[in-house]
């Protein structure tokens, strides 16, 4: 069985940096530092910084002395973990067996989808390309066993067969094994320099001198022992919180982060075969105030990143940010009950989805109340016989009595001598059951400009004449 398996290891050599660059739109020299033994030291640096002499391990103060314009951000391990999950999600498109290899790698079984993707090389190439496209630098390794795939991915080597793997392993120097520093020191102290030399030592001797874990590791990378793997599955519900290394109240900076979030959301929706119905966004304030929340609802389940970004942009322009935002949390509502978009047979223009898209765009800027449909309601009182509803939710019930073209939002008092009654009356006496009882006589009347008005004389609760509508 094992002979048929082939594992690809994905190693992210610059995960800490990539995780920061996901949320910072800046091309200049950048680095990530962390506190080690009370000193801030550079962990990773990007190309412009490396060219200027910034090195991993350097003290931050030294790096800033070399390159004063360096933007160094504190390492964010939570963001790294999230990004690693994203790598796994992309990998899940290539394999049903994906396992995380924290802190900066994953392994996936690729023999199963070799034919689908047109061969191993093509598969690995596509995978690299897709991850690069998402701003994640990777190195790939290939081996018949997962532990070796993980090891070779750090070196970017491929060993498709067990024999080839053993040959490559034999030539490896000990420091490539990524052992614990203590163990590595111990081995070099014994004069063991390569894996081949280490393997020559008797098994019992190795266990006694270096502990049982080394033997287990060696057996796993040589394929003599099964590597225990916790299979990774994409989350049931999409929820993501990205922290901004520097708080910002600029819409453009937030939109940049949203673009990343939507990119990940798009991957998740595709892989879980879900359609988005709404997005709950929460902007966390730097000053610790209560977060600003808004919701983007879609009139029809689906996902169109550019359109959604436009909707979010409209929302952001609308709300006034009282303080800079230092984190964005997004929770998605999705459904698996969806129909893939269909194009018009003749014009290839996707019309069925375009109308909800237009409503979404209008609604995002106009607000919930700014855009409405009309519905009738069965109530005798004319001001209660209609209501605003969300577009498309209209219902209608039959009304045989004459009703005007226009209704005034509120009946307006008028003087009876200004109007001439023409038709009527229509007595409306109702509403005693909910305490809003009224008694009115409706007439069609003319004003001095010859407009036909819908007027009523009210007896209860007020008395007097009112205009309620206009027959256009």
């Amino acid at each position, binding site marked *: 069985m094992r002979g048929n398996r082939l594992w690809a290891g994905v190693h992210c050599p610059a995960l800490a940096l990539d995780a920061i660059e996901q949320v910072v739109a800046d091309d200049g020299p950048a680095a990530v530092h962390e506190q080690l033994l009370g000193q801030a030291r550079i962990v990773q640096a990007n190309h412009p910084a490396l060219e200027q002499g910034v090195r991993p391990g350097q003290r931050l103060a030294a790096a800033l002395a070399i390159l004063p314009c360096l933007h160094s951000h504190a390492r964010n391990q939570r963001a790294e973990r999230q990004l690693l999950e994203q790598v796994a999600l992309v990998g899940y498109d290539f394999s049903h067996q994906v396992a995380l290899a924290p802190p900066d790698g994953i392994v996936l079984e690729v023999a199963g989808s070799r034919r689908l993707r047109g061969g191993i090389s093509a598969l690995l190439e596509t995978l690299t390309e897709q991850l690069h496209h998402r701003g994640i630098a990777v190195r790939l390794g290939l081996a018949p066993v997962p532990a070796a795939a993980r090891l070779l991915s750090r070196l970017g080597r491929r060993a498709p067969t067990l024999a080839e793997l053993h040959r490559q392993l034999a030539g490896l120097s000990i420091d490539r094994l990524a052992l614990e520093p203590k163990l590595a020191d111990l081995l070099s102290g014994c004069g063991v320099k390569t894996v081949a030399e280490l393997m020559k030592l008797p098994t019992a001797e190795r266990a006694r001198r270096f502990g049982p874990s080394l033997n287990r590791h060696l057996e796993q990378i040589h394929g003599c022992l099964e590597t225990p793997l916790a299979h990774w599955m994409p989350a049931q519900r999409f929820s993501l919180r990205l922290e901004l290394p520097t708080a910002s109240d600029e819409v453009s900076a937030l939109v940049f982060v949203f673009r990343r979030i939507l990119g990940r959301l798009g991957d998740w929706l595709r892989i879980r075969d879900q359609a988005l119905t709404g997005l709950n966004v929460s902007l966390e304030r730097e000053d610790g105030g209560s977060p600003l929340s808004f919701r983007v609802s879609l009139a029809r389940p689906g996902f169109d990143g550019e359109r959604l970004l436009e909707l979010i942009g409209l929302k952001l322009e609308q709300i006034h940010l009282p303080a800079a935002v230092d984190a964005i949390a997004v929770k998605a509502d999705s459904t698996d009950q969806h129909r893939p978009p269909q194009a018009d047979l003749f014009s290839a223009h996707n019309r069925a989805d375009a109308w909800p898209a237009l409503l979404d765009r209008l609604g995002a800027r106009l607000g919930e109340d700014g855009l409405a449909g*009309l*519905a009738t309601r069965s109530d005798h009182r004319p001001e209660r016989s209609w209501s605003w509803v969300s577009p498309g939710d209209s219902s209608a019930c039959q009304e045989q009595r004459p009703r005007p073209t226009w209704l005034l939002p509120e009946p307006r008092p008028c003087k009876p001598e200004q109007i001439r009654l023409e038709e009527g009356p229509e007595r409306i006496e109702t509403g005693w059951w909910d305490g809003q009882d009224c008694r009115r006589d409706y007439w069609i009347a003319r004003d001095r400009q010859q407009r036909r008005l819908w007027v009523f004389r009210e007896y209860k609760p007020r008395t007097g004449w009112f205009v309620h509508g206009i027959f256009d």
Partner: protein
Amino acid sequence: MPDARRFQPIEQLLESRNDLWRGRHRPAGDALTSGRAELDHWLPTGGWPCGRLVELLPERLGIGEFSLLLPMLAEQTRRGVPVLLVSPPWVPCPQHLERVGVALEWLVVVRSADQALWATEQGLKSGLCGAILLWHPRSRVRSQAIRRLQLAAECGPAPAFVYYKPGQQPPPSLASLRLGIRPGPELTLLRGNDQSKVLHLGRGNVIPLSTSDMAPTHSRDQPERSDRIACKGQTLWESVQ
């Protein structure tokens, strides 16, 4: 040897036939019927012109300027084509709309006045709406805004209508059709070759619901006297020309 013409793209083939009705799609230069034969005949475009801006200048609001368009709105919504009413002056009564045949689920009202022009432009540019009616919300009408709407209207297959309220000064217009509406209602072409042409659509501000109900002899020859009197001295729109 197969004839090359037999392998034209289907789109091209369909376009070449103007007797083919393709559901939502209408060829350019077309006009929507106003629902009244008399009006269609009177309008220089033979109906409401698709992809064009029509300016309507009612002498005052509520004299039939909305009812004028209701048969067309009813027809569009019945076909499942959405229509947009942007910042109407009052609430369109759903019972009445329902009675004249408007399918309410395809009627959307933009209630906010300050985003009215933007919403209209978005609606027009989308090319999805069967008609857009805008009651111009600003007291000062900028000609650039109207120009923008006109350009946007050309993107879509639908006619767009702008109502100027009494007191609003419409800009010198480039719109293809500008109609004055007086109580009656009676329509005047404010742009076009024959500006003296007047159409009496109804009497006493009542437009009959359908053409068959109309008695042309009445409306054409005997406009209600009181309207005539009311119209005297009303030269608001004449100054526009």
